[in-house]
């Protein structure tokens, strides 16, 4: 049993949900998180691909006063003031799956969320010892189905 933690763009959530439904993924947990990667929450202007990055929509309610507004990252040349590191709103998906289902799930997650821009997110796979269904106390693999 494995736990898959994926951190993806907010605007890709619906697409990811329907894609995962197609390969029959039963349970997903969604979390609103803020975070940053090695770019410290900034999109380096030089590395933008020819097609440009998908637009970010509005300001996230979870962003705080000290966070950089999302619109600051839309400009290719941010001013010095805007270039301070910030936390960007993301969605965290937690999926617990059998070992054999991990590869296809990761394949779908990458295929739907890959835009080629920085900030596409990360997927982590962690070992999971057991799962328990609260309703009837079922344990192990049968608790997942």
């Amino acid at each position, binding site marked *: 049993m*494995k736990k898959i*933690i*994926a*951190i*993806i763009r907010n605007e890709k959530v619906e697409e990811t949900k329907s894609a995962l439904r197609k*390969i029959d993924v039963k349970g997903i947990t969604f*979390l*609103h*998180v*803020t*975070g*940053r*990667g*090695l770019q*410290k929450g900034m999109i380096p202007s030089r590395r933008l691909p020819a097609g440009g990055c998908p637009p970010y929509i509005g300001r996230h309610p*979870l962003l705080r006063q*000290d966070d950089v507004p999302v619109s600051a990252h839309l400009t290719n040349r941010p001013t010095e003031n805007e270039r301070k*590191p910030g*936390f960007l709103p*993301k969605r*965290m998906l937690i999926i617990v799956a059998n070992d054999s289902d991990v*590869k*296809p799930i*990761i*394949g*779908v*997650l*990458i*295929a739907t*969320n*890959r*835009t*080629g*821009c*920085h*900030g*596409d*997110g*990360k*997927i*982590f*796979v*962690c*070992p999971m010892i057991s799962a328990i269904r609260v309703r009837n106390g079922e344990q192990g693999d049968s608790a997942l189905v």
Partner: protein
Amino acid sequence: MKMIWAIIRPEYSQKVIDALEKIGISAMTRLHATGHGAEMGITAGLVNYSEIPKEMLMLVLSDIDAAHAVKIISTTAKTWQKENSGHGAVGDGKIFVTYVEDAYTIRTAECRGTGADPPGKTGNTV
């Protein structure tokens, strides 16, 4: 590779983030959480507050970096109090460390860890 879940006081989170950045660890995820520890929250008179707001930081690091990060978090998130000669206070938080087998970067479909290349890497959409 290790995953660190650190539950810390919200007012200390910026301090911890700055301290981690100073040693070169800038990638992390932050989420709000509420909870209580072994002390069952705070009881003021007849009222018990069991859901105390906390901040959760999630970091995935190499084994060596993880050891450094744990040290930095545990020293920075600690409240210093004169009365207990700097031993911290109840509610300073917890740090949990778990294993991570694979870490994929979605942008490049690269995998770091024990797993082989994911199916998306060669362009096929599974």
